[in-house]
């Protein structure tokens, strides 16, 4: 409760959280207030007008509908990728950091191996091996390639905690490794893990946009994400012919979403770390 109070005192958190909540509300409740129609309704790249506020895309589809759908998909991909990446990273980091020795060396080498190979390259390579890619698959591919930094961060935190007296005491109480990790280390780094999760969600959203931008995003007729909208704009002349409405709104939505998550993350750091507290 006190934590929440502190968070609410931070303007960064309030702005970030409101922005994020607005995007979530639009993604979830938008379809209730706005008749979503992703079929062809007019001529390609029709300019914004009273009926279609943001105009039409290259297939003559309504951009507002596409953006609301795309926002939902991007959030979906971001959250699933975030959950996967954070879980893998936390498990590997916790175990390696706490155990130390050979287990840590092996896990560190594995992690560093994935760190030095650019994630985007792996993302491209894995994506190309799948002919058909659902949103969930894209989310999983991103999640399984993005865990490295969280693993490193969590490892450092766990390693710092392992020499604390309460860990020694827990061992003298006969607690096994699993119990020590779950009961005596995880609670201490939960706030850190949560911050990592938020960053992973935002990087998941960006990765989806990037991979879709080069045409390796979700496939299928109803696969609409913010990245796919940008890819279409890129492929079908949206970037020329003054068709600003083809890419500016989608770019703004992605930026707002990621910006909101970064604000939340940064403000949390200030609250969780007493030294940064004002």
């Amino acid at each position, binding site marked *: 409760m006190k934590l929440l109070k502190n968070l609410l005192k931070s303007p960064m958190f309030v702005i970030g959280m409101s922005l994020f909540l607005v995007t979530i509300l639009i993604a979830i409740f938008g379809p209730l207030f706005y008749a979503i129609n992703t079929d062809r309704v007019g001529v390609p790249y029709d300019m914004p007008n009273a009926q279609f506020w943001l105009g039409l895309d290259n297939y003559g589809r309504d951009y507002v509908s596409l953006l609301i759908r795309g926002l939902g998909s991007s959030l979906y991909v971001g959250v699933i990728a975030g959950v996967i990446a954070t879980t893998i990273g936390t498990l590997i980091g916790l175990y390696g950091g706490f155990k130390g020795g050979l287990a840590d060396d092996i896990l560190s080498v594995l992690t560093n191996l994935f760190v030095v190979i650019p994630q985007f390259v792996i993302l491209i390579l894995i994506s190309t091996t799948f002919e058909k890619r659902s949103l969930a698959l894209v989310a999983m591919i991103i999640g399984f390639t993005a865990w490295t930094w969280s693993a490193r961060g969590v490892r450092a935190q766990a390693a710092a905690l392992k020499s604390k007296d309460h860990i*020694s*005491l827990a061992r003298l109480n*006969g*607690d096994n490794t699993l119990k020590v990790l779950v009961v*005596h280390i995880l*609670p201490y780094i939960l706030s850190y893990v949560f911050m990592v999760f938020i960053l992973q969600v935002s990087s998941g959203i960006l990765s989806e946009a990037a991979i879709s931008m080069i045409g390796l995003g979700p496939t299928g007729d109803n696969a609409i994400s913010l990245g796919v909208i940008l890819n279409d704009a890129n492929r079908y002349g949206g970037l020329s012919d003054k068709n600003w409405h083809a890419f500016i709104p989608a770019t703004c939505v992605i930026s707002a979403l990621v910006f909101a998550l970064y604000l939340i993350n940064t403000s949390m750091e200030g609250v969780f770390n007493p030294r940064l507290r004002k």
Partner: protein
Amino acid sequence: MQNSEVKIFDAMNAGRTFGHGKKLVTAVDDVTFDIKDGEIVSLVGGSGCGKSVLAKMMLGLYRPTSGTFLHKGQPITDLKEHWREVQSVFQDPFSCFNQFFTIRSQLKAAFGIYKIKPSDKEMEDRVDQALLAVNVKPSEVAGKYPFELSGGQMQRMLLARIFVLRPKVLIADEPTSMVDACVRANILDYLMKLKEELNMTIVFITHDIGLAYYVSDRLFIMHKGKIVEQGTPDDVTVHPKCEHTVQLLEDIPEIHKEWIKK
């Protein structure tokens, strides 16, 4: 009461290193000593001399990397069994308990070392008795979280844990270094109470040779991982053989020294 036949700990050229290659650090270097049943032995040395590592070796938390380290004539293998007999209180009372659980639940967690746990009622009773033994009202502190208690109270909670488990051997790793003088006297009283009640063997780890002089049957002086001198408090303080012991003695405040001379 001393039974000189049983050696609680018996170390022969025991050592412990960390890391490897260029980063090799020798924390405990070729130590040979024994500790007999019912003795109070103080391990004295400056920071980083390896006394805490040696303490953790006695607890079985670190295995020796060289030499032999025996508990009652046997290498330490079954840790849970070892911890039923050998327990510890640590230096920093604030970091000793998990901040997310109540004192009662953490004192009860100590029963984890038993093969068969007592009934819940019995565990509660033993926790209550242990708290009373360190002059704390169970109803006042047991339901609290560690961060709600003062340093002195926390150190008592650590001792209450020992009263719960009633081990044969206690490794006390600087239990008085982070508390004020008044609490320090209290803690020493409780340690003596434990010693009398259970005929406990106590290994008292400290950098304060003055304090060690009062409480112990024998003193071990450690320097850079080695035990450089061992003997009765009088031998060590009156006729120090080693320069490091002299150094430690010189570091005692003057007023302390006058007491020792008496």
